[in-house]
């Protein structure tokens, strides 16, 4: 029983972390339909700047804030320079964002050097509690809480405002949305910036979790994020949350019970979900 609880809590926490990584992509890829291969770059920049600001200010919270600001700024630059010319054209998006990904990753090395850098958990979140055989790692609990907060925040925003609707409409028919009096360019810019900020936040929270940041971390986790967004159903926050938790739990249980298959677990999960639910778990509808 304790074992099951442990596995579940850890799986849930990993799932939440993955959700945080994927949430930005849910906006950018799921909702705006931009195949953003540079997402991992935004994520890695978030991680590095989080560590850097933390070291600079000696405050974890300020580190996170710094990362989010970095994300917003980078999101602005990315949207204006890279994404604007290629909205609606997936082929061009692949090329230009992959190019930008290379630039972002290499720039990390220019700024912070090619070596990995240690990322520390703040003292008040370090360590774990033990209740009998049940062990709860503080930082994971923190991740779970942040995950739910972010989920709630964005779910509320998408449900209670028209932004989600407008973005989806804009993807379907940009001209028409404009003809209805909406400055869709600005909406896209803001949503992209929000997505980039989420990516950066994900990176900043991921860093202490694994204890290290390195320039190539972006690409690895970007693929995971794409998987989550797709099996969750494009553009659906509840879908992404569910998919992320599914991935987290499946990883946790498989690694324990069927370790031989744990390498393949994400891919298998995705294959199974898509074969039985070709549109993903949820659709973007509230």
């Amino acid at each position, binding site marked *: 029983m304790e074992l099951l609880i442990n596995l579940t809590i850890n799986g849930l926490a990993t799932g939440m972390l993955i959700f945080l990584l994927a949430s930005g992509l849910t906006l950018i890829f799921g909702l705006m339909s931009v195949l953003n291969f540079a997402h991992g770059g935004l994520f890695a920049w978030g991680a590095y700047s989080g560590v850097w600001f933390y070291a600079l200010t000696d405050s974890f919270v300020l580190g996170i804030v710094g990362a989010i600001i970095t994300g917003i700024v980078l999101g602005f630059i990315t949207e204006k320079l*890279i994404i604007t*010319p*290629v909205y609606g*054209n*997936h*082929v*061009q998006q*692949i*090329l*230009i964002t*992959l*190019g*930008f*990904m*290379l*630039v972002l*990753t*290499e*720039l990390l*090395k*220019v700024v912070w050097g090619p070596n990995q850098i240690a990322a520390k958990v703040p003292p008040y979140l370090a360590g774990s509690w033990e209740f009998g055989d049940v062990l709860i790692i503080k930082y994971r609990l923190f991740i779970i809480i942040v995950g739910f907060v972010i989920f709630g925040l964005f779910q509320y925003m998408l449900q209670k405002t028209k932004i989600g609707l407008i973005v989806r409409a804009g993807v379907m028919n940009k001209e028409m949305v404009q003809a209805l009096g909406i400055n869709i360019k600005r909406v896209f810019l803001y949503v992209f910036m929000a997505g980039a900020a989420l990516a950066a936040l994900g990176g900043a929270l991921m860093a202490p979790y694994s204890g290290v940041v390195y320039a190539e971390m972006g690409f690895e986790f970007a*693929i995971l994020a*794409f*998987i989550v967004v*797709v*099996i969750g159903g*494009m553009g659906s926050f509840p879908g992404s949350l569910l998919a992320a938790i599914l991935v987290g739990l499946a990883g946790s249980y498989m690694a324990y019970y069927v370790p*031989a298959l744990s*390498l*393949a677990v*994400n*891919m*298998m999960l*995705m*294959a199974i979900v*898509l*074969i039985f639910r*070709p*549109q*993903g778990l949820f659709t973007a509808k509230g």
Partner: protein
Amino acid sequence: MKQKFQWNNYLLGVGVLALVIFPFVSDSRTWTILLTQIFIFSILAMSYDILLGYTGIVSFGHAMFFGMGAYTTAIMMKKAEPTMGIFFLSMGVGMLLAGVVSFFIGLLTLRLKSHFFAMLTLAVSGLFLVLAEKWRTLTYGNDGFTFKAPEFFKDRMMFYFLVLAMLVLVYICLRRFVNSPFGRVLVAVRENEQRTQSLGFNPLHYKVIASVVAGVIASLAGSLYAVSLRFVNTSVLAMDITLDALLMTIIGGVGTLIGPIVGAGIIELTQHYLSGLAKEYPIFERWIIFFGIIYILAVIFFPRGVVGTIREKMWKRQSKKSEVKPVTKKEGLG
């Protein structure tokens, strides 16, 4: 229209001729190898273009077929004799294998809509990667293994010619393929699947056949790749290979067939030059940044890929000369 075609073919002929003569006037092995490498990736990229450019399918799992060819050839050369016979046999076996696998995967997955299909191919090829990783008795896992190439290829020039011949052959066959009535339907499927259906063509058949053709050709490229390195490891199944094929196709111009060849050339050559520059000028130490910037500029200046954009420009100039006015003057009926 006819004339333009001939002109194009003429140009291509000259290009091929130059490449045939090249090893005789230059004995730079680096160039032979680099060009061989470019030819191999051209074949791979062309196969990808059949999917992306002609049928409108984005696949993130193309490396799986490339890897299948590479492993089949490598394993057969290692386990059996490294002779030309075995080499061609292994190529055939690899292609057959890729054909069968792509057929079933296509049947299973091609009903899915774009993104979902793309991710499913990613999943399947990911599973193949795990398989190669785990089946160590055969693949030696992630480290991979070396093997001997046939005696005939000891002279890399011979291999160069073989690969060049393969490239030309594949190009001609694929050109035929896309310009056949079948190929025209592929384009129709890309444009509007549902309408293709109501014209009496079954889109699924077309998509599956296209993915089989693409898979088989990718496997051929994989076989050649393995022999060119005399080594194989799991990197042939990695996402990077798919992305390379994807980038080459896009940079060159999707749906042009010649574009992927140009794209392969551009990417390999710039990479070669930039990394060469890095040795001489410290500012190029981070040459990958410049490489990334080239992708970005490519999209901005060649939105339809190099070949696609040039073609468009030429077509525009032509049509401007003859001034095809969209608004047709018609005599009033009165």
